[in-house]
Every structure is written in C-alpha cells, then in structure tokens.
C-alpha cells in the first residue's frame, strides 16, 4: 500500500512581534508573532531543514524530490537540486521544482504521492509584504516535507479531489517583491464553493462522513475563505485544527503542509485527517493514520519548534528581507563562490561530508586526501557529519566582517566521534556563547554575491525539542 512514510517541518528560530510593527509604524498590527526566516535562510534552506527532519524519521532514500515554493531562490536554475545535494541523495534521484504560487505545494504533494518509488515533497515559503500591510504581519516563513512510498506507512490516503478555476485573487508579476490582492469578498465568493466541493468529493471517495473527521485542516492564502469552508464543513468543533496564525503566521506554500505536520505530530493511530488547500482552486485529501504513526514522529515537532524562538526587531526583519538598505562595513564585498569549485566540492559544501582515514581512523572536516595524523595518502572514506553534534573549543565575535546581520560569531567546533571545523554560528546570542557549549549543524545561505547564493552549513545552539 502506498502512503505517507514520514514527515518533517521546520519553523525558523526568529519571531517578529506584531506589536513591534505597530510601534514602528504607528498603526495597529494585531497581536502575536510571525515566524521569520533569518538573514541566512531562504525557501531552499528552509526546505532542506524540513526534509532532513522527515528523512531522519524514515531512513528511506527518495527516488524523486518535488520542491514547491512561491518564493524561489533561483529562477531558470532548479532549486530542488540544492535540496537533493544537501540531503546527499544519489544522482539517480530526480529533483523538480514546482514554483511561483501557493498551489504549487498541492501539486508537489500530489505528484509525490502518485509517483513510483519513494518520493519526497518539500514545501517552503518566505512570505513578504509591504510595510504595514496584512501580508507582512499575517505572513510567516516555514517549510514542511512529506515522504511517500510503499511499505510500513504512517498514514493511508483514502480520497482525493481537486477543483480548478481561473480567477484573480492574489497575483504578482515576476521581479516584484510583493503580491497584490483583489477585494476580499470576491475571493470568498469564488473559494468557498470550490473548497466545499473538493472536500465533499474527497470524503465521498474515502467513504467517511464529515462528522467522522478527527482533524480538519483548511489552509490557503485567503484567510476568510479558510474560516468559511471550515465553518460549513460539518466536522466536530474539536476537529478544527489550529491555523498557527498567532505564533507562526500564514506560511503560504508551506502552510497546508505545516498544519498537516502539526496534526500528524500529535495524531493517534486510526484517526481521520482531512486536508483542504485553497489556492487558485481547491485540493482535498483524506488520510487515515496507521499503527506506525507514533514510530515515525520526528524528533523535532512543530510545537517544539514554535516554542523554541528568539525575538527579532522590526528594523532587523526589514534588513533581513532586503527592504531596509544598511551601510556596509568598509570591507571588500563578499565574492561569489566559483561554480567549478562548488561542483567539485558538492559532497562537502552541500551534504557536509568529511572523510575518515582508513589507516588510522582520524576524521577530517573538510575531507582531506592526506591524513593530518598518520599522513597516509588517499586512504579516506567519506563520512557525513550534518547530523553529528559538536562542542565549542573556542570562538570569537567578529565585528568587522561583512554580514547582513553583524556581528559574525565564529566558533571552532569539535565533533562527537572526531573532527574539528571552524564555522559561522547562527540563531545565536553573541553574549551567551561559551567554550564547551554544544552545537548542531544547519543548512544556510551564507550570502549572495553577483546573484549567486552561497549555500553552506553553520553551527547553531542545540534547538529545544531536538532529540
């Protein structure tokens, strides 16, 4: 039986308090917080983090990846190949983008579920909006990943239905940083019947009634329609999923996935979960969890990641998104990585693969040809360290180095089981770093130069909820 093998989510560490927007702009912006991708994160890096979490839970190698986002880091170059490389997947695994709209995510889920062999859908988004607008305050940044395949599945698909329609609710011309929206009540007029129809058809296929649904998720960029479709669905009141608006915000292409991951995190065996995505149409899927659900629960749940957070000021948030241009240090501009060098180092740069000397057992980060201890030549075997914890041996806070978010914290870290590396730290308070602290590795976009994103790994303090 084909179904869901594993899931994972990623909510970035930073939170913007909506009151901070109100204080800066002198207008009400509601309460609660939104999740904010750090200056060194984008939809690709968020997606990598969610996918790592899913694959850690399943230990199955996907044969295809479908990466969906409304905010791609690159156009005309596939972003899914970066995710593929960061996951250290074999070259024979396919990697495809589904880009540009929130609905891409529903397509990626559908494609991965319908594929042959294990297939991974990665959904990620970074939501931007004009200062003081609803998109800015109600948006959020996050990612979710779902691995489908045969075998011991955690959830079985019981029914699926799609509704498509051409109408103008939200749109953006390529190159613009913000979306526009038609009058809200028109969107509701179009979306509600589409959602209602899709849900009814999926439930019918599944052979279950609305009242039998244990969790109903209705997600999409049009908040008013989500609420309305939920209200008229006929499900039990306690089945209505939290929309995560208070703490995370609406995470666009990631949001249906993020809510599904949150539901799966707490689901018991035999529960019915109905997922409706309202985005330029409607896509509804009905799932029933299996006895394997508990064993596949990721080490880092959505709830744990929502709880593990640090504040970001409104000015810093605007700077991170590139909407507030700040004076750079009087230092040379960062240089883009060189394409051939990056390609040669794919295993190291993207998958954080070091090497271990087969003659004396010494581990090397980055991989070396000559052993630093026994000097044996070309006796190395690759060893991936992306999931290995490390301890800070010494560190510094560099106030002169170029960064979108100075100061740069650099640490020398020693890995459990051997190996040392000197790297940047992120999601860290420079005042609290000390020798002996434990860190874990996270995939980031170090900087962008000449339109080239420089992806690599950084160390961060162990995040709460990570087993």
């Amino acid at each position, binding site marked *: 039986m084909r179904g869901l093998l594993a899931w994972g989510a990623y909510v970035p560490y930073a939170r913007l308090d909506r009151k901070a927007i109100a204080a800066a702009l002198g207008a009400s912006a509601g309460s609660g917080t939104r999740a904010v991708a750090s200056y060194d994160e984008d939809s690709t890096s968020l997606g990598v983090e969610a996918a790592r979490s899913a694959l850690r839970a399943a230990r199955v190698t996907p044969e295809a990846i479908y990466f969906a986002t409304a905010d791609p880091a690159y156009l005309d170059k596939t972003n899914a190949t970066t995710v593929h490389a960061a996951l250290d997947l074999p070259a024979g695994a396919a990697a495809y983008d589904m880009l540009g709209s929130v609905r891409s995510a529903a397509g990626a889920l559908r494609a991965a579920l319908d594929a042959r062999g294990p297939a991974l859908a990665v959904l990620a988004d970074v939501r931007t909006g004009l200062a003081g607008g609803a998109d800015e305050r109600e948006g959020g940044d996050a990612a979710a990943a779902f691995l489908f395949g045969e075998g011991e599945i955690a959830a079985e698909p019981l029914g699926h239905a799609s509704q498509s329609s051409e109408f103008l609710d939200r749109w953006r011309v390529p190159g613009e940083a913000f979306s526009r929206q038609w009058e809200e009540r028109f969107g509701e007029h179009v979306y509600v019947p589409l959602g209602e129809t899709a849900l009814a058809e999926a439930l019918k296929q599944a052979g279950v009634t609305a009242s039998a649904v244990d969790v109903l998720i209705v997600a999409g960029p049009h908040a008013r329609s989500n609420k309305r479709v939920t209200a008229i669905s006929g499900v039990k009141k306690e089945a209505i999923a939290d929309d995560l608006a208070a703490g995370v915000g609406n995470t666009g292409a990631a949001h249906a996935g993020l809510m599904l991951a949150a539901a799966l995190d707490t689901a018991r065996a035999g529960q019915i979960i109905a997922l409706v995505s309202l985005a330029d149409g409607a896509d509804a899927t009905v799932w029933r969890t299996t006895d394997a659900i508990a064993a596949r629960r990721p080490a880092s749940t959505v709830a744990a990641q929502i709880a593990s957070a640090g504040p970001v000021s409104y000015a810093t948030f605007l700077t991170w998104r590139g909407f507030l241009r700040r004076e750079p240090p009087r230092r040379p501009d*960062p240089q*883009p990585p*060189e394409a051939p*060098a990056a390609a040669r180092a794919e295993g190291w740069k993207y998958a954080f693969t070091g090497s271990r000397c087969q003659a004396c057992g010494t581990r090397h980060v980055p991989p070396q040809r000559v052993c630093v201890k026994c000097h044996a030549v070309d006796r190395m075997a690759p060893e991936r360290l992306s999931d290995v914890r490390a301890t800070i*041996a010494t560190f510094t806070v*560099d106030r002169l*180095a170029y960064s979108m978010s100075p100061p740069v914290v650099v640490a020398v870290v020693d890995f459990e089981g051997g190996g040392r590396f*000197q790297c940047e730290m992120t999601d860290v308070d420079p005042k609290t770093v000390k020798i002996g602290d434990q860190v874990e590795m996270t995939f980031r976009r170090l900087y962008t130069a000449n339109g080239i994103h420089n992806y690599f790994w950084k160390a961060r303090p162990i995040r709460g909820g990570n087993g």
Partner: protein
Amino acid sequence: MASNGIRDRVAIVGMGCTSFGERWDKSTSDLLVDAATEATTSAGVDVKDIDAFWLGTLFSGQSGLTLSRPLKIDYKPVSRLENYCATGSEAFRNACYAVASGAYDIAMAIGVEKLKDSGFSGLPSTRSVGDGTAAAMTAPAMFSLLAPAYAKKYGVSDEQLKDVMTRIAWKNHKNGALNPRAQFRKEVPKDTIACSPLVAGPLGIFDCSGVSDGSAAAIIVRAEDAHRYTDRPLYVKALSFVAGPAAGPIDPDYDYTTFNEVVASAADAYAQAGIKDPRQELAMAEVHDCFTPTELVLMEDLGFAARGTGWKEVLAGTFDLEGELAVNPDGGLKSFGHPIGASGLRMLFECWLQLRGEAGKRQIASVARGRKLALTHNLGGAPGECVSFVSVVGSERS
C-alpha cells in the same frame, strides 16, 4: 631538524627604512626608491653595485619589474616573493642564502606594501573564495580565538587577560612614541586602550596593529667582506622558516594557546645560533605583535617565559624597554602598522640600530653591558595554520 644554517657566513652592511604611516604622498615605487636609496647610502654602494635583488610584497606588485622599473635596475636578477605576513623576512632569508652560496657578492633584500590606497579597514582578502565554504573571518577575529582559549587553560579571568592585552599595547605605543619612523608616535593611556571599541572577541581597536604604508631594505654581503663597507656590520646567526600543516582548524588536539610553527622555528633558530637561554642571551626581540594576544603567546613560544606564565611576565614589565628582555623596542606593529612586505625588514632595522648603539632615546642598556644578539620574529596566517620566521643577528662574529 636537518637545518644546517649559515651562521656568520653573511653580514648586513647597510639598511634603510622609510617612515611608516598613511603615506598619501608616496606611491609603491616612491617608497621602494626611498628605502633602497637609504640602504645603499648606508652601505656606501650604488644600486649598480648590487648583483641580485629579492623583493617582498603581498599586494603591491607582481614580478621583479615592481622593483627594477622604479630603481632602473640594469638587467639583474630580481625575485618577487610573498609568504603572507612574513613576506619581508622571506626576502631577507633568500637574499642571505644567495650570498652564502657564493652565487652573488652583494644582494639587496627589500620589502614594501601600500595598503592605505585600497580604502578598506584592515587587510584586503588574499584568497580565492573557491567553493565558498571557508568561514569569512577577519584577521583580528582569527587571532582573537587565542584569548578565550588561553584564559580558560591557565585560569586567567577575562578582566586579567584584558589587563595583559592592554599592557602589551601600552608598552609598544610607549616605545613607538620614541621612534620618529613610527606611524603612531605617542603614548596611549591604558584606559583609552582598555575602553576602545571592540573589533573581535575581547580585542578593541588598540589591540590591533594599524594599517600603513612603508618600505625597508638591507644590503647583504659575505661576512669576510663586511668590513669593506662598515666597521659595525651585523652578522646573520640564524634564519629559520617553517610552514605548518595547517592542522589547527581541523585537529581537535590543537588548543589555540600556542603557535606550533613558532615553537619549531624558534628551536631551529636557537640551534643554528647556539642559543641556550634566549631570555638571558638576547639584547632584544622584535616579534609579530599583529594583535596583543599574539604577543602574549609568542613570549611563551619563543621561550622568553614558561608556559602559562607569559601573562604574569607581561604585567611585571619583563618585556618593557627597561625590562629584562626588551620586546618590540621600536614600537612593533602596534606603532608601525603592518605594511606586510616591509614589516620583517623593519624589525631587522631596529636590530641594526640597537646593536650598533644608534637607537637614541630607545637605546637598550643591555647592549652597552655586552649583549650582542637580537631576534626578529615574523608570522603569517592564523593560529593553527601559519608560517613562522625567526632570525638571530649579532654584532660580533664568533
């Protein structure tokens, strides 16, 4: 180590050193002409008498033409080389070997760097970005890694360590105040140093050497010919240069409280020069005080203080101008800035003045009492991955 050395086989018979600083008025070529002319005048020779040239510069030019063009050298060998921040010392070392080999009778070592024209704070970047995975650290950040590691290993509090760093900067500026060629020629109160804005880790602006322009040069001949040029030559006792395996950043056994490369090059140099106890035998040492924690660690690596005690010796004034062993009597990189190709030869220039009794207000008393040896130390790179140079020169041929 199979390092035989060339003790007492070559001698320095003339030197020149420009004033260091923001030399907006001078080009790289101007600085080279100034230093070369002072050196040849000092030795009583003409550029056309010199058989071969070694030019050290990291950023300010490529090929021998960088020197032959401004000096109008007529069809002679001119090598341009670099070895990070030890570039000036490397020019000197190669010129010495050329003369010792008998290939040439008289050689010039000259170093230059013109850093201020770039308009950047600190040094421009030297390395290609490659795959983009190396942490983009500035030089002060790399050397600041020493501070917390040293403090933790030897149980020194953050406040004590800051006092030690401050005293090193204060001492070097005090010496530099007496030096007309220095970039910064005034004493700096300890409070000003300790409270200067932070650059990296605990390092404030005053814990960092400046950025400056400058050039220095030396004329080298066979030891037996030295007295044809001067009655007070300096004999080369030891030259040691090592490049490490750059293991520190990848080997957890490295603890960021020492430069293994410096330990190795010092041992080699002391063996070449026949030095048993450097603290008792040297009149002075010019060391690579790029950042104050570097000088602290060097006191132990060069054998001037026992492991874990360098910080106490610094506070006790052991390395002051009037102390037991004067370190950086000319003011060091702290007072001169660090025009990379020039610094190693600038250090040698202070040995030249001090051992000949020409250092004026900075003259070290122990020279008159009979100490005849001086040491220069120059390093390039970062803790755990550097090149290190140590030379010993003396005013007497043994």
